[in-house]
């Protein structure tokens, strides 16, 4: 469904990505852990097609239409309401007009935004905004989810809800790439793990039932201090 082959990229002389290779199938969730500056966001942007890598190829079944991106910025328009935002993004993704309203309502319900549906996006709380951002990312039913530090700024309850939702989505067959510097947050969801440092994978493999503590130890060992 999603594969990267020998992807390398540089900013000027600064090597950002170094021969990244992996494949991701339906239902798999790849959690990439790495310190700041490791190149995680760059990798996600390359996977999304926002950046053309210097070398290597990315193959994504369905193209940009198949991607849902959730970052720490909501990508919502402040003066528009939640519903208006969702309808706009749905139209950009060519969701059929007859289906747009229904999907928007469904997602609003599923993410507990019923009371905020007709509120302007700039009036939402951080947690509500994040949920609205998730709705926006899912409005076109993407097959692949790319998540860039999605738990940033979420309280425990909201984070737990997000984890539950992501689990459901994976179970329904979506492929997910989750990028974070916090091992505890991503462990439960992952079917596969990668540790990233200075642009390349220092470790890559199935989670194999390890828990957060074990992974944290392995992470520290692989990536080193800082």
């Amino acid at each position, binding site marked *: 469904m999603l594969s990267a082959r020998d992807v390398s990229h540089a900013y000027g002389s600064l090597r950002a990505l170094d021969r990244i290779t992996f494949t991701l199938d339906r239902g798999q969730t790849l959690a990439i852990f790495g310190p700041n500056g490791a190149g995680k966001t760059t990798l996600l942007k390359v996977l999304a097609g926002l950046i053309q890598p210097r070398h290597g190829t990315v193959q994504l079944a369905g193209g940009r239409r198949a991607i849902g991106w959730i970052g720490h910025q909501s990508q919502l328009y402040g*003066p528009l309401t939640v519903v208006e935002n969702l309808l706009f993004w749905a139209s950009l993704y060519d969701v059929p007009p007859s289906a747009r309203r229904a999907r928007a309502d469904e997602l609003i319900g599923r993410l507990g935004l019923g009371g905020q549906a007709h509120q302007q996006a700039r009036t939402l709380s951080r947690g509500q905004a994040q949920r609205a951002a998730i709705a926006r990312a899912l409005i076109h039913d993407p097959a692949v989810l790319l998540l860039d530090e999605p738990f940033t700024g979420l309280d425990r309850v909201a984070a737990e809800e997000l984890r539950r939702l992501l689990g459901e989505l994976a179970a329904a067959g979506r492929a997910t790439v989750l990028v974070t510097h916090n091992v505890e947050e991503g462990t439960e969801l992952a079917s596969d793990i990668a540790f990233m440092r200075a642009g390349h994978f220092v470790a890559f493999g199935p989670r194999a039932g390890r828990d957060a503590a074990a992974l944290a130890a392995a992470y520290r060992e692989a990536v080193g201090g800082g």
Partner: protein
Amino acid sequence: MADLLRHAWLVARKDLYLEFRSRTAITSALVFTALVLVVFEHGRDPTAVAISALAPSILWVTFSFAGMLTLNRAFNAELENQALDGLLLAPISRTSLFWGKLVANLAFVAVVQVTGLLLFTLFFNVPVWRVWAPLVVVMIMATVGFIAVGTLFSAMVVRTRFAELMLPVLLLPFLLPPLIAAAEVTTKLFAGRPLSEVSGWLRLLAAYDVAFITLATLLFPATVTE
């Protein structure tokens, strides 16, 4: 092609909704236009120069400055919550995005210019009504190419420091040809000359528009990709 136009229209429509909601940019531009006209009126000595000699310059300087004010609006809203990344991720071409922004910009500039023209007629007592049709044609032709370059530049400066100051600095040389041409044609129109006398200027304007709309469309992707 149909998709291209449809997506462009979706982007433009969203911009129009946004501006209608907040109304900040267009209000400032309208107030500014009125103020500039008032300053011009009080800054001249009515006994020294006949208004008909000054009128075209006043009109077009006002249009130019007001036009530049509305340009900043185009990409500011996209930065707020990184909506621009969302637009770049969506399965629409960069050209659709650019044309959508351009159409929205032109709509706003049109509103400001029409209002400016009405105020101008009110303040300066120049017989505009006899030549309103060719005048509108000149207004469109002198504005389109310039706003295309302005939209392109606003995509760049929005991420620099001093964005509001940078845009006029970069844009002013591009103002010169359409400004001169428009002022010349307007002078002839107010003097009751037929349009055929200014065909050279009109052809210059047309060439300018074609050249810069094309160039801006071609160059826009370079300003947003990484």
